[in-house]
């Protein structure tokens, strides 16, 4: 009979293997499929020295914690640090290096601070609370489970004496701490109250914190009440969930932020890839683009935005359309507000600065939403009324589409239209960066025209072009500089009489029509290998030839 019993025991031992052989060897806490809002998970394991001498807690990130089982103690506890998302933790018990029991726990740490964490996935795991009388019984053999936290808001002289400290002491170990936490006035917040978002947890724990927590915070922080009067509030602020951004215990950074920088914190939700805050995600900002707003990179999102509440849309400190931008951009402010000629795109448009610029990050220089020319053509793809004189500005998109030869600076991806025009305003008409003329005739004597910033003045000043100076101009009849002939005269013609400063079907940006007192006259320009001819309004067809001069100007 005794032999049979021993045999049975042996068979059971062999077949059972790593199964829990005795109810006295078990993981009391946590339950499988538990959800955590903090990174610490406390394992409570029952083990008797008779059955096991070592407990090994192994996490799926290869962190292993080993506990020695002692004869005088039957319950062991250990807090491990969870990683975000799913954690597979196994607890193995060994006796004489032989596995006697193994049990697994699948836990979920839900935090918006980490990528790959998902509110939907977290739904499969249950939030559980430790501090219930029946569970606390387990602890009482070692711990005093009756809170000694002062309720009069006078912290203990030696905070290590608080009953909470023994288990939760590891929580406060950074330089920035929240006063009630550092002073172990835990029950100031962990008051067992519930809020509208955690009604279901009512009575689940003596130390429950109300969700939303704002009222609790507001009991010390008066500012919370003040926010009620603001026009716009940040989502978490509106929800009263201060803890979404702030860690109520401690932090590596000021303001007890949950991440190491403001920007990082904001991007936790306001990223296209964010799995948190579906509303915040819609207001995403792509900060991965190469050109970033300096204010954000060198300072933070809070240069422009308020974190809590604001009287301007998008939680901005000032009106987004202009005031905010011009608060820093002094040079542009001067131009935008005081220029003689203003750009409707910035001064009278709907979005003002944001018509062209993205305030966060873009692929394009100067934080332009699109490439330089495309930015301008966003509006100038139709005739638009000029703020300057009320006249209609041409459809530039159509003009560029129809005329394949563009003025070189426009083709330059770094410059575009802004090579000649100052989009913020100018004292020169057509918001040109330097003077020019609208007229057919112009006195070119002072040669102060914008064109000569790039094009040599010699083009118009030299009457004759010698053989070693051919690079000055190709508009020659033999040695006679035909630019000089057209321009240096009592009735000097301006550049735009013959050239289209934007784009043309012809080479050398020769216009198809020249406007003379409201009448469009075709130039009838024909190019030949060594010259060409032209029959504009001004004269009959004249031909020129660089090699075999036709005798123009003689």
């Amino acid at each position, binding site marked *: 009979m005794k032999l049979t019993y021993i045999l049975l025991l042996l068979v059971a031992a062999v077949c059972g293997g790593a199964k829990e052989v005795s109810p006295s060897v078990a993981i009391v806490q946590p339950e499988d499929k538990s959800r955590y809002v903090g990174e610490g998970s406390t394992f409570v394991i029952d083990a008797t020295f008779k059955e096991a001498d070592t407990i090994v807690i192994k996490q799926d990130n290869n962190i292993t914690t080993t506990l020695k089982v002692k004869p005088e103690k039957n319950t062991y506890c250990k807090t491990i640090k969870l990683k975000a998302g799913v954690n597979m933790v196994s607890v193995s018990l060994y006796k004489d290096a032989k596995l006697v029991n193994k049990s697994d726990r699948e836990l979920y740490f839900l935090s918006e601070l980490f990528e790959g964490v998902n509110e939907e996935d977290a739904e499969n795991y249950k939030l559980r609370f430790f501090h219930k009388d029946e569970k606390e019984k387990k602890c009482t053999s070692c711990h005093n489970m009756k809170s000694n936290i002062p309720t009069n808001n006078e912290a203990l002289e030696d905070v290590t004496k608080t009953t909470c400290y023994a288990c939760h002491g590891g929580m406060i170990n950074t330089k920035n701490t929240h006063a009630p936490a550092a002073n172990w006035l835990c029950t100031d917040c962990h008051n067992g109250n519930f809020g509208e978002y955690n009604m279901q947890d009512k009575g689940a724990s003596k130390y429950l914190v109300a969700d939303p927590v704002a009222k609790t915070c507001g009991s010390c922080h008066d500012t919370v009440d003040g926010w009620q009067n603001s026009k716009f509030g940040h989502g978490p602020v509106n929800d009263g969930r201060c803890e979404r951004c702030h860690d109520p215990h401690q932090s590596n950074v000021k303001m007890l932020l949950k991440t190491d920088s403001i920007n990082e914190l904001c991007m936790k939700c306001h990223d296209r890839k964010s799995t948190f805050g579906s509303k915040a995600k819609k207001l995403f900002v792509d900060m991965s683009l190469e050109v970033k707003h300096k204010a954000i990179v060198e300072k933070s999102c809070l240069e422009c935005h308020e974190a809590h509440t604001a009287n301007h849309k998008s939680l901005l400190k000032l009106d987004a359309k202009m005031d905010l931008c011009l608060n820093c951009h002094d040079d542009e402010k001067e131009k935008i507000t005081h220029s003689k000629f203003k750009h409707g795109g910035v001064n009278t448009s709907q979005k003002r600065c944001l018509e062209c610029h993205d305030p966060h990050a873009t692929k394009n220089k100067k934080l332009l939403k699109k490439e330089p020319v495309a930015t301008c053509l966003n509006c100038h793809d139709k005739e638009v009324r000029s703020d300057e004189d009320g006249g209609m500005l041409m459809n530039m998109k159509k003009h560029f589409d129809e005329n394949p030869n563009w003025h070189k600076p426009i083709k330059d991806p770094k410059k575009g239209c802004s090579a000649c025009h100052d989009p913020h305003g100018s004292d020169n008409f057509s918001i040109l960066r330097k003077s020019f003329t609208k007229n057919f005739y112009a006195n070119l004597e002072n040669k102060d025209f914008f064109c000569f910033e790039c094009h040599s003045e010699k083009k118009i000043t030299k009457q004759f072009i010698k053989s070693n100076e051919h690079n000055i101009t190709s508009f020659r009849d033999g040695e006679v500089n035909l630019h000089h002939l057209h321009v240096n005269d009592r009735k000097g013609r301006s550049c735009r009489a013959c050239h289209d400063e934007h784009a043309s079907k012809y080479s050398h940006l020769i216009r*198809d*029509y020249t406007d*003379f*007192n*409201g*009448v*469009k*006259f*075709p130039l*009838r320009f024909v190019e030949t290998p060594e010259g060409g001819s032209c029959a504009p*309004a*001004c004269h*009959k067809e004249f031909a020129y030839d660089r090699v075999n001069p036709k005798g123009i100007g003689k």
Partner: protein
Amino acid sequence: MKSCMYIKIALFSVLFSIALFAQERAAFMVVNPPLAQIGQESIASFVVEADSASVDSVVILSDANETFTIEVNPKRSHYCKSINLHFGQNSIKVVGYKKGAVVKEEMRDIFLVSKVDKEHRYPPQKYAKNYFHDEKNEKICSKCHDMSVNEVKGVAFVDIKKSNCYECHKNINNEKHSHAPSINWLCTSCHNGKVGIYNQADENRTKYSVPDPIGDVCFSCHKKNQEQWSAKRFHHEPAESGRCNKCHNSHSSQSEFYLRKAAWELCTTCHKDKIEGAHVVKTFGRAAHPTHNVKDPSRHGKDLSCISCHNPHVSNAPSLLQSETVMGLCSRCHKK
């Protein structure tokens, strides 16, 4: 019997003359111009209706011995030809030939008026203005020509030959210097069908009349002139009265500024007293200051003329001088 003979002869001669008359009548007809017309431009358009059965060719012969031959063919009834005119009376003969023999002759007199030469300014009484572009004539032309205006207001033709005016009026721009609206065939910018105080008689006579005075039409492009001139004290009469086309040919000219003659010749057409004698200054024993036939030092590459010293339009100085002071005037050329 004898009376019968007389009757026969009479009948024959009547029939013969009718036949002859009929043949002559059917040979050709000069539709345009009328017998005696006032010409205003240096060309006249002849429109001849010819019957190939009775005439092989029609020759138009100007009194400058220019001939134009029209070969008559059965497929066409009307033929047109532009004839060059000289100032004053032009007697143009139109002759129809059949197998080398003259079948009919007609004469047309055109008096080309000059806006400057006194002797050609006023045509004799028999001449009358003729307006070609009426419904009847245009109907004839429209067999071959598109008689509509195909000009786009404010945009010149890239290919001027596409202008419907070009085909018949192309010779008008033949001279060296051409006025932009003219050479670009923007005809209706001036030929706007309106009349002025000096040509009220033209009202409703033609679609293409030009107002006289023309000044306001000119100033619609030459805006600056209007602004600047109105501020001056003295004005040359034609400029003052807006009759720019008195001196300028609005189409084309051999002379600079589209002048009807070279500047000196043009001015002295009216100011004849300045041709002879010492107009400017004459010092003892030396030749008078020239007024032409030398280079003008003040205008590079140009010849000296009246306009070297006088402004032909306006001035603040008496005698429309180019400068308000004597020194200022002389130093235009005499620099040191």
